[in-house]
């Protein structure tokens, strides 16, 4: 168990420290940047070749964007949610790509002492990445709500109207706590899902590698099945993260819901 969990420890590639702030480039950061570049290239190419009748690869991208628009914008925020499509779409594609990158099982390659190729890692299996996104979503939906309603009205609308006056301070505190825990639950859900899935894969692989020949088949079948399930989970987690973002923004913009 220890050595499996050690697999998730980040390896420092470039040491960079600002005082007590650790800005080192680890293998997780590298794969985050790769995912970032992939999403940018994919969406840029797809947007540049926009046609009336899309074909092939561009058609696939358009179908996903259409799905995001239908499911997360129109169904939850209504037509006035359209300005948030780029934000929510970017979150969806980014999380999906980061989740998928870690599923490609390529270990790190070392030449002598130097690590020439950092092993494929899922950056979302680290709390730093997911908490950063959680805080970003928290800031965005609160700022959008404040901009739309004004600070005083926004704070007032946290408490549902029509409650007795002596309950208002209590409910306000309760709502405040629930709002603070929103980014935490977003972050921990994504992080724990990815870490758990990859740990299960690692355990099955470990079992397949260490057991005797005739028993190997069983954990190997487990690896194959879990791999398929993990691809599904990668999609579902990206979907959940972005749809919850849409719900939070919608809740901040329309207080009555």
């Amino acid at each position: 168990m220890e050595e499996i969990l050690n697999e998730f420890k980040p390896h420092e590639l470039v040491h960079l420290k600002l005082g007590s702030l650790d800005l080192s480039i680890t293998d997780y950061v590298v794969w985050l940047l790769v995912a970032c570049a992939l999403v940018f290239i994919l969406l840029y190419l797809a947007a540049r070749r926009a046609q009336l009748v899309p074909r092939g690869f561009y058609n696939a991208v358009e179908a996903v964007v259409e799905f995001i628009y239908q499911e997360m914008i129109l169904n939850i925020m209504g037509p006035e949610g359209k300005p948030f499509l780029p934000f929510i779409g970017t979150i969806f594609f980014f999380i999906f790509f980061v989740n998928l990158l870690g599923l490609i099982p390529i270990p790190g390659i070392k030449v002598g002492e130097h690590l020439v190729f950092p092993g494929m890692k899922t950056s979302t299996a680290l709390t730093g990445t997911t908490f950063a996104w959680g805080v970003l979503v928290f800031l965005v939906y609160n700022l959008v709500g404040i901009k739309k309603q004004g600070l005083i009205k926004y704070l007032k609308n946290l408490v549902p109207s029509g409650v007795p006056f002596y309950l208002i301070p209590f409910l306000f505190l309760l709502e405040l706590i629930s709002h603070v825990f929103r980014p935490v639950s977003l972050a921990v859900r994504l992080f724990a899902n990815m870490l758990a899935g990859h740990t299960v894969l690692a355990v099955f692989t470990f079992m397949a590698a260490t057991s005797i020949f005739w028993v190997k088949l069983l954990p190997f079948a487990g690896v194959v099945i879990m791999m398929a399930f993990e691809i599904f989970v990668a999609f579902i987690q990206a979907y959940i993260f972005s749809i919850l973002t849409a719900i939070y923004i919608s809740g901040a913009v329309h207080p009555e819901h």
Partner: protein
Amino acid sequence: MEKGLAYLAAGLAIGLGAFGPGIGIGLLVAKSQEAMARQPEAGGMIRTAMFIGLAFAEAVALYALVIAFILSGK
């Protein structure tokens, strides 16, 4: 001795922690299947709501899993 207790606690944490969410997810999926069978034209909306509910139920088990990881890494 202490390490053994930590492993035992980790096992108990995820075992008991998965108990409630397991029941919850079962109920959730059963009910939404029922709803979808009754009203297939509302299937898309029900599915969306189901996945959101699933995420919340599942998160509880995952909190337990994080505790289990922390304990077993001790």
